[in-house]
């Protein structure tokens, strides 16, 4: 049984905020009454199936859809040639060379990864659409394939996008502090040949899809879908389809997990829209699991080459240099934003002041990457943690003590990093101590000996996550100065309806994070009513007036952007309720209070108006008022305080909050097989004020499961021809119930000084866990040759290789001391 040890909140809170209020969402979901996109049906809708490329790289010589079209029950098709006439290529975030990529909703002239959609077929049934797709004849001429980002940048490599003149999407040097001086001051320089962060993603259980309708009279499309960032989808789709954003209505209700992987479904949505218009019927598209694995949103694979670390004799870390090579896959659907997002956590939790990092991103014949829980930061955090363990092992420092020495300390908060980011609050040493205590680290040597007596290698691992939340989109200008994005926002409306119902709408797209519940908690405390009285509309609808350009659910920001918008709107409504009551009672506003579901006179509780009366007056009973009664319908746009970063120095605050997690584990390795078993695991979370501790803990546990999966089992493996070898849950092993180690959680709260509620966004803690396992494995291997862990993904065969040839990895590390 898991031991859950949670510390009580440290702040004075209202009656609802801070409580583990059971979720409002659950009632429908445990009864099968949720509405996921695939549950939405329309009369005579056509089922869409994609014909996908069997090649990783090929030119399309010809396409013949006639045999499919002749089948009874097939409604129609769409090809890349039609798409190229009906739409413009998607807007590119990248400056040249990546900015020259021409990306359409279907392949035009050429395919660039296995599984790329080439033709769409629509038919009367799912089964028929799938069968008809097999009757579409496509002739390909295969081309040389690139599956390695390092090779993609070499001279003479095959080129994916001719317009780009090579496979480079973005390259830039990021330098802060005085790096040369740091290396001159160093007593030791540790060089690490190559580190590799593997390709995987969080594979939400529900795949992508949509039900799309076209209203011919108004020219508007409605998409019932599970896209998790409708603001972004609309910005991508509108210009490509040559329509204004108001023609694109995006609706979500329940979404079966997202984890970032459902941000970039805009190409498929465009195909659905074009076909709904062309075929004059609703289009139903549900992705199959294999299709998801082949084509949807892989996480960024990244290499770190020729790393050098400047270390003082006492273990103080002065700085590092490294060359990061990132693999974007075949198209830049959200990239190259990963090329800047990492810099939110350039130095991780540590006081490195001097950093030189060359970031280069290449395109390869693999599925396009896009955000995946911990997007682009977990690679960097993994790197910083890996460097520390390697330095510790090579220079014989204690892995715990060197962390303690180099942590940004609580008294340094708020801490400005060398690149101008501001860590708002936190206590990293305390989090580490709690995590170590939870896994019983003080007995580790006894346990190591006991395991050794059973022939097992035991190791202790540590990992950290700085969950930077609430992006400053101005950072996009650091990779493309021409972009006109900056800041961030989210919208909420809170209104009082005729019968006194409190109704909240949001621009977010929850996928399991419990927004209905936490939003209701915040509103209930402000209006002094029950959580049950507050109705939070389910899901997202871009036709509600609670939608702005950055609306969506991504990048650890709801507890800041979403709930601050809710708070702002609820505060406005509370003010209006007081004002209206003062008009009715003809007394000053200061004499009125909200309490127990009433607006009443403070020293005369008999003079009380129920919410119902307050809602009815402006809506349906407004005669006789000398002045207009307040509307009781409040909209608030939360805008975090950001400046545009300095583009020359690549300097400025890129995110508002930094939630922290420290993970610690004990692993046992069977030297006969290389199989790693996680025997103890703890995750300690500090995300500032917790609105609902149970929901926070749920996020921590879920992220931990993702981390353990990615560290040991989950990988998108390609062969040299670009075939994906793990295209389903059979080959791509995600953790099952029996795989989960005993899990302990701990929490404390360092409120953010920068946010209205003291909250921090959280939920992306998985990166810490990936490193935690790597670190445990390296520690365990010390007793068996001392191999260095250089990869984020360590299945049994890689561990076995490290056991068999520990010198191979050790030889990639060099130390120069003076």
């Amino acid at each position, binding site marked *: *049984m*898991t031991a859950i040890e949670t510390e009580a909140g440290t702040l004075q809170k209202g009656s609802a905020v801070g409580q*583990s209020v059971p*979720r409002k*969402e*659950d*009632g*429908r*979901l*445990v*009864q*099968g*009454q*949720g*509405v*996921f996109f*695939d*549950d939405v*049906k329309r009369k005579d809708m056509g089922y869409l199936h994609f014909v996908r490329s069997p090649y990783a790289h090929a030119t399309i010589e010809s396409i013949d859809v006639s045999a499919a079209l002749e089948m009874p029950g097939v409604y129609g098709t769409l090809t890349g040639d039609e798409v190229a006439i009906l739409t413009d290529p998607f807007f590119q975030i990248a400056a040249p060379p990546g900015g020259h990529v021409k990306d359409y909703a279907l392949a035009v002239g050429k395919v660039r990864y296995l599984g790329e959609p080439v033709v769409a077929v629509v038919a009367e*049934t*799912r*089964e028929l659409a799938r069968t008809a797709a097999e009757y579409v004849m496509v002739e390909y001429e295969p081309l040389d394939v690139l599956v390695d980002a390092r090779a993609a940048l070499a001279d003479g490599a095959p080129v994916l996008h001719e317009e780009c003149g090579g496979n480079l999407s973005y390259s830039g040097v990021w330098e802060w502090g005085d790096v040369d001086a740091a290396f001159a001051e160093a007593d030791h320089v540790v060089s690490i040949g190559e580190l590799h962060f593997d390709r995987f993603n*969080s594979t*939400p*259980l*529900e*795949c992508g899809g949509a039900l799309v309708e076209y209203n011919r009279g108004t020219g508007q499309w409605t998409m019932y879908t599970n896209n998790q960032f409708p603001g972004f989808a609309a910005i991508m789709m509108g210009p490509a389809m040559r329509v204004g954003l108001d023609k694109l209505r995006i609706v979500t209700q*329940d*979404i*079966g*997990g997202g*984890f970032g992987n459902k941000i970039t479904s805009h190409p498929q949505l465009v195909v659905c829209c074009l076909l709904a218009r062309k075929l004059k019927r609703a289009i139903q598209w*549900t992705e*199959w*699991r*294999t299709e998801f694995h082949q084509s949807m949103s892989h996480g960024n694979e990244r290499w770190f080459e020729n790393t050098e670390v400047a270390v003082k004799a006492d273990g103080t870390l002065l700085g590092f240099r490294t060359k990061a090579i990132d693999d974007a896959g075949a198209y830049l659907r959200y990239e190259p934003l990963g090329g800047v997002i990492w810099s939110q956590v350039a130095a991780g939790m540590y006081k490195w002041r001097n950093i030189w990092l060359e970031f280069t991103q290449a395109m390869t014949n693999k599925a396009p990457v896009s955000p995946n829980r911990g997007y682009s930061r977990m690679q960097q955090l993994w790197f910083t943690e890996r460097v520390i363990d390697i330095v510790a092992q090579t220079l014989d420092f204690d892995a715990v003590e060197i962390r303690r020495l180099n942590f940004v300390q609580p008294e340094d908060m708020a801490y400005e990093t060398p690149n101008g980011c501001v860590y708002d609050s936190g206590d990293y040493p305390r989090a580490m101590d709690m995590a170590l205590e939870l896994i019983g680290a003080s007995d580790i040597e006894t346990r190591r000996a006991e395991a050794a007596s059973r022939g097992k290698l035991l190791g202790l691992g540590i990992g950290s996550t700085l969950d930077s939340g609430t992006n400053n989109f101005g950072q996009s200008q650091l990779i493309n100065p021409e972009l006109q994005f900056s800041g961030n926002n989210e919208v909420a409306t809170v209104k009082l309806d005729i019968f006194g119902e409190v109704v909240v709408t949001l621009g977010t797209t929850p*996928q*399991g*994070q*419990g927004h209905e519940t936490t939003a209701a908690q915040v509103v209930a405390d402000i209006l002094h009513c029950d959580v049950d009285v507050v109705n939070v509309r389910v899901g997202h609808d871009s036709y509600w007036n609670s939608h702005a350009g950055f609306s969506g659910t991504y990048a650890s920001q709801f507890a800041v952007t979403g709930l601050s918008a809710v708070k702002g709107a609820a505060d406005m409504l509370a003010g209006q309720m007081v004002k209206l009551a003062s008009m009715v009672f003809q007394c000053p506003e200061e004499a009125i209070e909200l309490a127990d579901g009433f607006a009443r006179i403070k020293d005369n509780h008999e003079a009380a108006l129920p919410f119902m009366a307050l809602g009815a007056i402006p809506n349906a009973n407004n005669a006789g008022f000398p002045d207009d009664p307040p509307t009781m319908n409040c909209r608030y746009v939360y805008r975090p305080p950001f400046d545009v970063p300095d583009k020359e120095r690549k300097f400025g605050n890129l995110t508002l909050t930094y939630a922290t997690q420290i993970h610690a584990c004990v692993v046992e390795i069977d030297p006969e097989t290389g199989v790693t078993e996680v025997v103890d695991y703890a995750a300690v979370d500090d995300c500032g004020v917790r609105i609902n501790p*149970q*929901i926070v803990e*749920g*996020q921590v*546990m*879920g*992220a*931990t*499961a*993702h981390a353990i999966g990615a560290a040991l089992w989950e990988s998108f493996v390609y062969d040299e021809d670009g075939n994906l070898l793990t295209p*389903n*849950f*059979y080959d791509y092993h*995600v*953790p*099952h*119930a*029996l795989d*989960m180690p005993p*899990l302990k959680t701990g929490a404390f709260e360092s409120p953010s000084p920068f946010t209205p509620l003291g909250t921090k966004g959280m939920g992306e803690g998985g990166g810490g866990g990936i490193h935690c396992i790597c670190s445990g494995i390296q520690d365990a291997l010390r007793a068996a040759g001392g191999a260095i862990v250089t990869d984020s993904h360590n299945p049994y065969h890689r561990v076995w290789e490290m056991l068999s040839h520990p010198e191979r990895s050790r030889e990639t590390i060099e130390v120069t001391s003076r």
Partner: protein
Amino acid sequence: MEINGTSYERDVPASLLLVHFLRDDLDLTGTHVGCDTGSCGACTVQLGDEAIKSCCMLAVQADGASITTVEGLASDEGELTPLQQSFHEYHALQCGYCTPGMLMSATALLEKNPRPSEHEVKVALQGNICRCTGYWNIIEAVVAVGEKGTR
């Protein structure tokens, strides 16, 4: 066949999967689809007293069978079963996409083994993938129902 106590008679194509029959023909959309290899258990329903994956069965194979789906668990008045209630209390669901399958597998387990151990619960849920929760809250929710003896 009989589903949640109601008899249905339909002509269906031979290739139609049971899960698509439930979802598309009968509009019982609580049963979900999460994979195409029989690996995830999102489609789990109870056939007789066994939990089965409805994506691994053709609709015609279930001819004459008695099936319970997630819609058949709570009472008509919406009163939750102790297991559903326990999922709610233990925060055993986030997105809720795996939940119907989890509930059906666990219901079948509890019918056969009213007080399962933690390990027995894990084994019974081994065919059900959850990508959100990390499983522990689900396991605890099921064990707790057994301990309370209130299945």
